[in-house]
């Protein structure tokens, strides 16, 4: 059938020289079919064509009602008897429903009716239903000679605009009235038989999509984890064994010098366990920790409250991977001093309210540097280098408070696209009360820094709701389509914003 159409088009061009409008020439053929035939002919350079767009108007359902039954205002006018008595709005509403109000308003505007108390009274003897007449013209012709009429009917939502596509067709460079069958592929058989020598080949369509390369996919968050891991390995960090979600309050809080009265240790913020409830022992140095809380030590006055062994034994889902850092530092302290760098990227838990950007569980990235030469200046220099590898090269630092670090800093990076500073992480030097009770010798300084993994991932991939990234509600097609992670390159929204910013200058 479409082969017939193609031949017809060619023959028409041959006899007439050109086709002015396919809509006229092929009135009963659907536009897509005509376009398909033209595209096919054009790919063989047999024709060339231009698209013509014309507008025509159709009657909407509400317009159809007024076309058949008269406009609202005409109907209302007709329902108002002649004479000074008129009719009440109530009666009209009873008779016409909501049409009454609409029609009455128009009648008042046209000065066909006037209000006399509660009654509507005729101002003129008769009216012409121009709206109905206009609709009749549009219905027949698809348009109206007066553009203001079109505007008015469109505003009242009685008519709708439609586009008709049509095509003007000319002979192409390789015009002929013959349609040769084109081969769509080169086959082994054609090579073997020699048929390829006389075949005409259909041109490749580079504008279409190829066949989907079926394969597997890694999860977006894990791709970002891999990028971070790379940077940690490049800068000499050992990965910590964080495969322990359940932790005792001792390691999660007390050993980190977080006092037992701290609000973060309350049920609202932390997941406590009811089975099991307590750790079955505390590590052998627990009394050092108790003392530094209760009485102070290592130059500190401590918190001076009554420290509870039972409280320290309560089990929680860790609120940060810093609990594991404490384990590692304690282990490091068992041997002679050596500089060390540790990192981890793993799950932590907060019993806080969930919303679009927060779940009860998320992944924390943590880095730790133990070195006798560590200072705030060298920590800042290290963070400069670390984040530069991830495309963030303009950092600023703000004093902040953490119970277990002092000095502490919030890390900010300048985002060119947004034109402002964004907080990207937290850092600080661990307190001596913590380090010395873990057994590290005086003079060994340990710095730590951390951030969440989800936040930069959502930012990088322009994801607004965390449930589109983590959990069972994530669409598998989104995982499949998710691009590779390059932290050192701008992607998606970042790239758009950056080029927008550049263009603004």
């Amino acid at each position, binding site marked *: 059938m479409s082969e017939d159409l193609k031949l017809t088009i060619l023959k028409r061009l041959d006899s007439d020289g050109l086709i002015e409008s396919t809509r006229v020439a092929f009135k009963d053929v659907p536009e897509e079919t005509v376009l398909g035939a033209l595209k096919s002919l054009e790919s063989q350079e047999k024709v060339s064509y231009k698209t013509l767009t014309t507008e025509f108007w159709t009657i909407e359902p509400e317009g159809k009602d007024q076309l058949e039954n008269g406009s609202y205002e005409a109907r209302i006018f007709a329902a108002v008897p002649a004479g000074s008595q008129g009719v009440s709005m109530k009666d009209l509403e009873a008779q016409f429903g909501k049409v009454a109000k609409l029609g009455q308003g128009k009648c008042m505007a046209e000065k066909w009716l006037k209000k006399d108390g509660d009654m509507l009274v005729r101002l003129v003897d008769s009216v012409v239903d121009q709206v109905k007449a206009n609709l009749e013209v549009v219905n027949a012709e698809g348009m109206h000679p007066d553009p203001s009429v079109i505007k008015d009917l469109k505003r009242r939502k009685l008519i709708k605009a439609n586009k008709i596509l049509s095509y003007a067709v000319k002979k192409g460079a390789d015009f002929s009235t013959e349609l040769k069958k084109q081969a769509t592929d080169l086959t082994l058989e054609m090579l073997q038989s020699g048929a390829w020598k006389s075949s005409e080949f259909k041109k490749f369509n580079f504008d279409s999509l190829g066949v989907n390369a079926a394969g597997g996919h890694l999860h977006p968050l894990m791709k970002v984890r891999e990028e971070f891991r790379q940077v940690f390995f490049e800068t000499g960090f050992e990965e910590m064994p964080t495969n322990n979600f359940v932790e005792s309050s001792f390691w999660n809080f007390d050993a980190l010098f977080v006092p037992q009265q701290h609000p973060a240790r309350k049920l609202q913020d932390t997941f406590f366990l009811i*089975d099991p409830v307590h750790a079955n022992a505390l590590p052998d140095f627990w009394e050092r920790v108790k003392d530094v809380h209760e009485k102070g030590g290592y130059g500190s006055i401590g918190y001076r409250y009554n420290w509870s062994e039972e409280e320290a034994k309560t089990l929680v889902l860790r609120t940060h991977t810093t609990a594991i850092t404490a384990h590692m530092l304690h282990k490091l302290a068992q041997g002679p001093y050596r500089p060390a760098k540790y990192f981890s990227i793993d799950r932590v838990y907060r*019993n806080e309210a969930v919303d679009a950007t927060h779940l009860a569980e998320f992944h924390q990235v943590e880095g730790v540097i133990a070195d006798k030469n560590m200072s705030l200046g060298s920590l*800042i220099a290290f963070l400069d280098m670390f984040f530069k590898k991830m495309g963030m090269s303009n950092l600023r630092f703000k004093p902040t408070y953490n119970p277990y670090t*002092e000095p502490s800093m919030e890390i900010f990076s300048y985002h060119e696209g947004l034109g402002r500073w964004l907080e990207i992480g937290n850092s600080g030097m661990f307190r001596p009360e913590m380090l010395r009770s873990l057994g590290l010798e005086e003079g060994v300084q340990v710095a730590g820094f951390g951030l969440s993994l989800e936040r930069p991932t959502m930012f990088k991939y322009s994801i607004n709701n965390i449930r589109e990234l983590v959990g069972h509600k994530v669409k598998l097609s989104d995982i499949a389509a998710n691009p590779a992670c390059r932290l050192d390159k701008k992607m998606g929204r970042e790239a758009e914003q950056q080029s927008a910013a550049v263009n603004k200058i």
Partner: protein
Amino acid sequence: MPKINIDKKDLFDYLDNQFDTEAFRELCFEFGIELEEDSSEKGELAPGERAELKIDIPANRYDLLCFEGLSRALGVFLRREDTPNYRVVPAKNPYRITVAKECAQVRPLVVGAVLRNVKLNADRYKSFIDLQDKLHANLCSQRELVSIGTHDLDTVQGPFTYEARRPEDIKFVPLNQTELMDGRRVIEFYESDQAIKHFLHIIRESPVYPVVYDAKGRVMSLPPLINSEHSKITLDTRNIFIEITATDLTKVNMVLNIMVTMFSGYCAEPFTVEPVEVVYPDGKTIVYPDLEQREVLTSSAYLNGIVGIKKTDAEIVELLRKMSLDAVVDGSSIRVKLPATRPDILQECDIAEDLAIAYGYNRIPRVQNNEATVGAPLPLNKLADIVRREMALAGWTEALTLSLCAHDENFAFMRRVDAGDEAVVLDNPATAENQICRTLMLPGLLKTVRENREQPIPIKVFEVSDVVFKNPALERGAQNERHACALYASDEARFEVIQGLLDTVMESLNVSH
């Protein structure tokens, strides 16, 4: 982080600098507080409405929780003023609070102080009340550890007593009320008060309630709930009596010190406080407030080393002055005198942070000097990543599901019975989805398939992650286990497909049949 609202004009007038918003934001950034919002930036202010700054304060800085403290701290930081010398002026006949032995049953501690000849106005009064609210909420642990009572000294008569009596024996008219109530009626009455109902549990079940009396036997307060109507502070009050009851000795002193240092600026003799003696049941007498005359001994070597700068002793002393810290050089050491407004300073490292702030975090030379170290992955993670990669290469898609789940999802729905020795159970979960830690990976993948039903079949998903098992033999009572799980969903179950994946993964791990 606690937030405070500060009148913008009052603050800028005090600092004699009408900062533009960016400049003030910079100052806050450098000092370590955060300007969250300037109400005049949002749009036109209503007539008569004053611009307000909403500022985030670090949780350990109780001296920045009110206008008086913040403005003073910034004034000192900008070197417009020196930190005041807060002092206790001895009184010939100091007021006394005698503590009855029954108090030990419910709320053992009380401290007090007097602010003489103060001048209050509406703003100062509001600030006074707001600071008490903020301290109650944070440092005082919702009044449980410490609670503050303030009174017009001229409406009561010393000496005072702090007792614990049966609720029905305590009768007074509470603040802003007209009804005479006893202890029981007070509890009943405040059940419906949105603010106070949260504190009733602190004393409700006790056979005796704590109560502060004056010499005429009039109730001044029923801690930690409410003060009396007759001793209340008004704008005309000239002499303020502060009594603070508590269960925590360290905190009650901190709170008293903050209250008097913040508001003694309004005394006729600024920054002076009149002492109060507290006589305990064992006869011991302690004079309050102690206005913590603490000292921290440090050195330029230590401070420079922590910050990463090279300043002389004299330069360090100058810089610390910006942070309200008075320091003197003593041989090779530096002696830092701590004002009573800085209970957050526990030792040298706290001084180092203040020095770094005074110097400017972003001016510190960025010099890296730590030793090189060798990196290494955790072997378990390396193995898990190999398995993940092989599964993805085989054409499967990785999911990342939640490790907390509902009990049924891990047991009943999987046709398994819970013998009670397997899963870790969470206390007070906010939602049913967080009842236990998973011991299986499969429910997470099944839920993933459920949420992806409209995707084309076959659906091939996998996940390699941790589950958690109880283990009473271990110190933490539980352990993680790394599991690999894969799920094939289609219109046919096709066991051979999942079997094939397992074969592929095992081969990649060099495990033969």
